[in-house]
C-alpha cells in the first residue's frame, strides 16, 4: 500500500514539472512583439559589459554626464576609442588583462566582498553547529597515501601560489587558489597527521578578511568612493600591474584557504579535538 502511494507522488511530481517545462519553453517560441531571449548573440553592444571589456566606463560616463542622461549609454558605444594593446597600454582605469577579474574585483567588487562574507558566515555556522561534538578518528595513513602526498604536495603548493598571483593575467584567482590550499591542508592531515590549531586559522581568516575590507574602505577616504582605486594601474599584462587587484586577490586566496581548511578540519577531527 505504502509503495503505491510513493509512486503516485512521483508521478504527480513528474507531471507538474513537465507542465513547468512546457511553460519554460513558451518564451522561446512565442510570436509577437517585445524583447525576448535571442537565438544568437552577435555582439555585446546592447549590454553593460561592452564598457567593461573595453575599459571605457570612465570615458562613457563623462560623455553621459554632459548629456545628463545615463540610460542612453548604448548609443555612444560606437564612438572612436583607443584599442587596448597587450603590454603596451598604460594607466587605464583598470589594469587587469583578465577582464573577468576586472569585473570581479573592480567594477562589481561589492558582490565579491559579499561572496567572501557568505563563505565566512557559512564556515562560522558549520563550527557553531558542530561544536561540542567528538568524532571517532579515522584510520592512520597507509604507506601509499604517505608517499602520494609527499610527491604531490610541492606541486599543489606551486599551483596555488601561481594561480593566486596571476589572477589578473590568466584564468584563476583567489577562490580556486584558496580551495587548492584547502585541498593541500587536507592532504597534510591525511598523509602526515599534521594539524593546525583552529585558533590560528581563525586568526588568519579574520585578519585577512579585515584587511580586505579595510583596504577597500581606504578608497572612500582617498578617492571619495568605497572600493575606489587609489593605487597605480601600470601596464596591462605585466605581473606587477593593477596593484590593488593583486593585493586584494592574494589576501582573498589566503582568507578562502584558511576558511575552507577550517571547514575540512572541523569535519575531519571535530571542533573539539584541537590537537
Amino acid at each position, binding site marked *: 500500500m505504502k509503495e503505491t502511494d510513493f509512486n503516485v507522488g512521483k508521478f504527480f511530481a513528474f507531471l507538474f514539472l513537465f507542465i513547468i517545462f512546457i511553460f519554460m519553453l*513558451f518564451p522561446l517560441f512565442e510570436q509577437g512583439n517585445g524583447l525576448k531571449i535571442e537565438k544568437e548573440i552577435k555582439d555585446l553592444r546592447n549590454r553593460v559589459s561592452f564598457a567593461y571589456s573595453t575599459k571605457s566606463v570612465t570615458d562613457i560616463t563623462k560623455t553621459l554626464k554632459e548629456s545628463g*542622461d545615463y540610460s542612453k549609454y548604448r548609443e555612444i558605444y560606437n564612438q572612436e576609442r583607443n584599442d587596448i594593446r597587450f603590454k603596451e597600454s598604460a594607466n587605464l582605469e583598470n589594469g587587469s588583462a583578465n577582464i573577468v577579474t576586472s569585473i570581479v574585483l573592480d567594477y562589481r567588487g561589492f558582490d565579491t566582498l559579499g561572496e567572501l562574507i557568505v563563505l565566512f558566515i557559512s564556515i562560522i555556522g558549520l563550527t557553531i553547529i558542530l561544536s561540542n561534538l567528538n568524532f571517532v578518528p579515522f584510520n592512520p595513513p597507509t604507506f601509499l597515501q604517505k608517499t602520494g602526498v609527499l610527491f604531490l604536495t610541492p606541486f599543489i603548493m606551486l599551483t596555488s601560489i601561481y594561480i593566486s598571483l596571476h589572477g589578473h593575467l590568466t584564468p584563476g584567482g583567489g577562490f580556486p587558489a584558496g580551495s587548492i590550499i584547502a585541498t593541500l591542508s587536507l592532504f597534510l592531515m591525511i598523509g602526515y597527521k599534521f594539524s593546525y590549531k583552529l585558533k590560528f586559522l581563525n586568526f588568519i581568516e579574520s585578519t585577512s578578511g579585515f584587511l580586505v575590507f579595510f583596504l577597500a574602505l581606504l578608497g572612500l577616504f582617498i578617492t571619495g568612493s568605497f572600493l575606489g582605486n587609489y593605487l597605480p594601474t601600470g601596464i596591462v599584462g605585466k605581473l606587477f600591474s593593477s596593484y590593488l587587484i593583486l593585493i586584494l586577490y592574494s589576501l582573498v586566496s589566503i582568507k578562502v584557504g584558511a576558511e575552507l581548511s577550517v571547514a575540512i578540519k572541523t569535519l575531519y577531527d571535530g571542533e573539539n579535538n584541537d590537537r
Partner: protein
Amino acid sequence: MNYNTTVLLIIIPILSSFLVYMPVGLIKKSFKIIFLATILFNLLFSLKIFSVVLKYGNLITIIGNYHPPFGINLVSSFFSILFLIALYIVFLISAIIFIFKNDTKNNQQKISSVLLLYLASFSEIILTGDLFNLFVFFEIFSISNIIIISLKNEKFSLKGSIKYLLISSIGSALLLFAIGYIYAILGTLNLAEIALNFEKISFFSKCFIIFFLMGSILSELEVFPFNLWISDSYAGAKNFVNILLSGISCVVSLYIFIRMFFTIFNYPSISLYSYNFPLDIKLLLLTFFSLSIIVNQLVALTSKNIKRILAFSSAATISTILFALTSGTKSGFSSAILLIISTIISKPLLFLSSHQITKGKMEKNLDSFKNGINRKRYFSILFIVSAIFFTGFPLTPAFFGKLMLFYTYASKLNYYTYFIIVIIFSITVEFFYYFRMIHKLFIKDETERENKNIKNNLSISYFVSGLTMISILIIFFIFPNIYEKVITKMSEEIFNQKEYIQTILKLGEK
C-alpha cells in the same frame, strides 16, 4: 557631507564582525562593547542620513567611482531609511537580550559575529540598487537565519533550520535563474534601468520572470505552500531569535516584495495580457494569499504550543499584508504599512512576554499560561497590551489598517470584493485564539504546587526592552497623526516610479 559614506552602514558592521571573531586576548574581553557600539553607530548614523534625506530628497551612493548603470549603487530614500531605523530598534532590543543572557557562553563570540553580519546584510538588502547584489546579500541573510534558528541545538531547531535551508536554497536558485533571464534580455542588472525597460519585454518572458521571482520571495514570506518551515523553526528557536524572525526577517522580505512589485514591475499598471493567453495576475495573487491566510489561521487555531500559535498568526498577518498590497492602490498600500507598523512593534513583544510567562514550565503549551497574572504580573500585562494592539482593537494601528483594507476592496464593487469574506474570517479566528490565551492567564492553576522558593527574578534586560517597546506602542496610541504623515509620504514615493529612476539615471530632464 559626502553621500558616498552611506556605505558605512554596511561596512562598519562587517569590519567589527571580523574584529569580534578574532580570538585575541584583548578583543575577547571587550567584544560585547564592540558589538553594542556598532549597533548604536548604525542607529545614529541612519538617523543622520534620515535628516539629510528629509532635506534634499533621495540620495544615491556610488561604489567604486563607477556611475550606476555600470557600477553598484545604494539608494537611500525616505521609505528605505525609515524602514531601516525601525528594524535597527528591534535589532538593538534583541541584541541586548542576547548579550546579557549568558546562556550561550562558549559560542557567544561567534554568534555575535553572525548577528553583526545579519545586520549588515539586511541594511544592504534595503538600500541596494542592483539585482545581483541583492541576491548575494539575500543569501547571507538566509544563511544567518539558518544559523540563528539552529542555535538551541535541539531536535526542533535543527529540523526547522534544515527545512529553511532547503526551501531557501531552491528559492535562491529560482532567483538566480530569473536574474540570468533578465540580464539575457535587457543586458543590465541595475534596478532602475530594469524598471525603465520592463514594459518592453515580451509577454511570456515577463510571466516567466514574475513567477520565478515570486517563487523565490514567497518562500521567505511564509505563504501557504512554502510555510512548512515555520512550524519547527519558531518553536525550536531561542527567544531573541524569535524576536528577530518575527520582527525583522519577514519585514525585510516584505520590503523586497514591495520594491520588486511596485518600483521595478510597476505593479498597478502591469499589463500581463496577450490575445491567446489572458492572465489576471491580481486574481491569481488574491487566491494564493487568501488560501494562505485561511490555512495559517486554522493551524494557529488548532495548535497547542504557544510559540507555534504566535508563529502561524504572524504568518497569517504577513499574508494579510500581501493581500492588501495586491490591490495596487494607495489605500491598500497605506493599510499594508499600518499593519507592518503594528507587526514590527507588537509581535516581538508578544514573543518576549509569552516566553517569560511560560518560563520554568516543562511544556510550553496553553496550560502553562494558567495563573500567569499572579506569577508574572508585569509580563502578563505586557502580553495583554500587545495582544490588544496586534488583533486590532479600536484606535490602534492594526485597527486602522484593517479598516483601510475593507475600504480598499469595498469602495469599488467588483469580483475582488468577495475576498473580504476571508479577512472577516481571519479577524474572527484571530480574536478567538488570542482571547483564549488571555483568558488562560486569569485561571487558577490547581495542579501548581505551592513553592515560593523559586525567586521571581526579573532580568533587567527583559524589563528594559519590554518597557521600550511598550512606550513606543503608547506613543503611537496617543499621537496617531505621526504615522498619517509618514504614510502619505511613503505612498507618494512608492507610487512614483519615475522619481526613483530619475534619481539614479537622471534621464536628461530637470
